[in-house]
């Protein structure tokens, strides 16, 4: 699943990466060479302003680096945690065609996690380090995955709404100022073009199916609509890192802009599906040329983010267990590699 990286807001737990990377630090003091530092900073700012890409070994402000690592890590974590709610239905998929699609999709998510961890590694942070931070709760993943997939229709709702929201968020990241992140996103967006479509098609089949299937689809959309809107992160005036991220061109549009874009795209799609969106205030605003929509329950958002969502513990426990139970396998392969490299080099001598 495409996952997004909502800008963690002011309530982020202190001590997490999200909480630390706020203020800009030019890195000048560390260098102890104010002139050179200032020059580097100016060159960096100019390059970013000119829409040039920053590459791994370029000089960059420490805060830019920290912000990118935080965002790429959160994005990667979201991909691999995001496998769980969908994998929950692989063994119960109701047709072999759907089963193949779902397996391929969950596999893509593992692959996308890998691309993103690789992109983060270009900044000198190893995947193991990032996984440790995920497992210990120091780094977050998209809160949406703390909601459960209760019925088969949830697989469709995730594809249509969650992936739809994520794509809206991700397409602009293909032009992110940091080269490796932008390149990973280009690959991810290309591969994910089928993810949203399969969700839409799945829901369409249910909506046009039996009464029970239609009800299942409607129920799923009712449950996933609001959390999907929350995926864009807190409103612009409450988003801690948004402004800086936009100045650095890590981010291209504000949370609220992207959320509005998503709502405007989703409304006609819901009509085509024959399903309603659970918002009585949702209506076209002629004057703005956009849809108005109801108030989002941000208390719920923060609560889920803090760990009180329906599946927070379950997701992280499964992730940790897979990692811990896999330790002996990773050790075995490493031991084998070491033995055989040694044997080979001994043979050469």
């Amino acid at each position, binding site marked *: 699943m495409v996952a997004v990286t909502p800008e963690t807001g002011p309530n982020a737990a202190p001590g997490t990466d999200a909480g630390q990377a706020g203020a800009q630090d030019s890195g000048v003091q560390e260098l102890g060479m104010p002139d050179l530092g200032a020059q580097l900073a100016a060159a960096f700012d100019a390059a970013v302003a000119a829409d040039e890409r920053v590459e791994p070994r370029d000089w960059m402000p420490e805060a830019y680096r920290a912000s990118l690592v935080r965002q790429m890590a959160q994005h990667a974590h979201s991909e691999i945690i995001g496998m769980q709610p969908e994998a929950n239905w692989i063994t119960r998929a109701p047709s072999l065609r759907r089963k193949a699609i779902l397996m391929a999709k969950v596999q893509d998510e593992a692959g996308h996690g890998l691309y993103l961890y690789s992109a983060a590694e270009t900044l000198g942070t190893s995947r193991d380090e990032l996984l440790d931070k995920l497992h210990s709760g120091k780094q977050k993943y998209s809160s949406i995955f703390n909601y459960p997939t209760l019925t088969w229709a949830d697989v469709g709702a995730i594809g249509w709404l969650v992936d739809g929201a994520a794509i809206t968020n991700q397409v602009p990241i293909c032009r992110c100022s940091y080269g490796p992140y932008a390149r990973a996103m280009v690959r991810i967006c290309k591969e994910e073009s089928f993810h949203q479509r399969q969700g839409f098609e799945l829901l369409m089949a249910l909506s046009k199916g039996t009464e029970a299937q239609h009800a299942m689809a409607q129920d799923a959309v009712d449950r996933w609509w609001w959390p999907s809107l929350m995926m864009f992160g807190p409103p612009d005036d409450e988003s801690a890192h948004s402004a800086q991220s936009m100045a650095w061109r890590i981010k291209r549009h504000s949370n609220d802009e992207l959320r509005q874009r998503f709502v405007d795209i989703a409304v006609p799609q819901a009509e085509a599906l024959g399903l309603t969106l659970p918002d009585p205030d949702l209506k076209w605003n002629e004057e703005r040329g956009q849809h108005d929509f109801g108030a989002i329950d941000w208390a719920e958002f923060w609560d889920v983010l803090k760990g009180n969502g329906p599946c927070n513990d379950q997701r992280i426990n499964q992730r940790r267990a897979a990692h811990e139970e896999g330790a002996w396998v990773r050790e075995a*392969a*490493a031991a*084998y590699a070491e033995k055989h490299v040694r044997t080979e080099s001994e043979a050469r001598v």
Partner: protein
Amino acid sequence: MTQNWPLWEVFVRSRRGLSHTHAGSLHAPDAEMALRNARDLYTRRGEGISIWVVPSTEITASSPDERDPFFAASADKPYRHPTFYEIPEGVRHL
């Protein structure tokens, strides 16, 4: 005992006649597994017909800063590029 697998850079030839290009990286315990992981990860949509894997630590790079003057010199030798030369219209095969 370490469980940490080294990082490998992956280069994929997308079809015959093209050179291998950098596709990304991955972790693997050794070269054989790196090749297989690369096949699974970077060619699962038929993107390649040949793969190279190289330990990331074995790559020597030109300079610490990719906007370095190392490459500035070549930018001021426009005569190395065919567009430098004016050819009258109508002259072909040149």
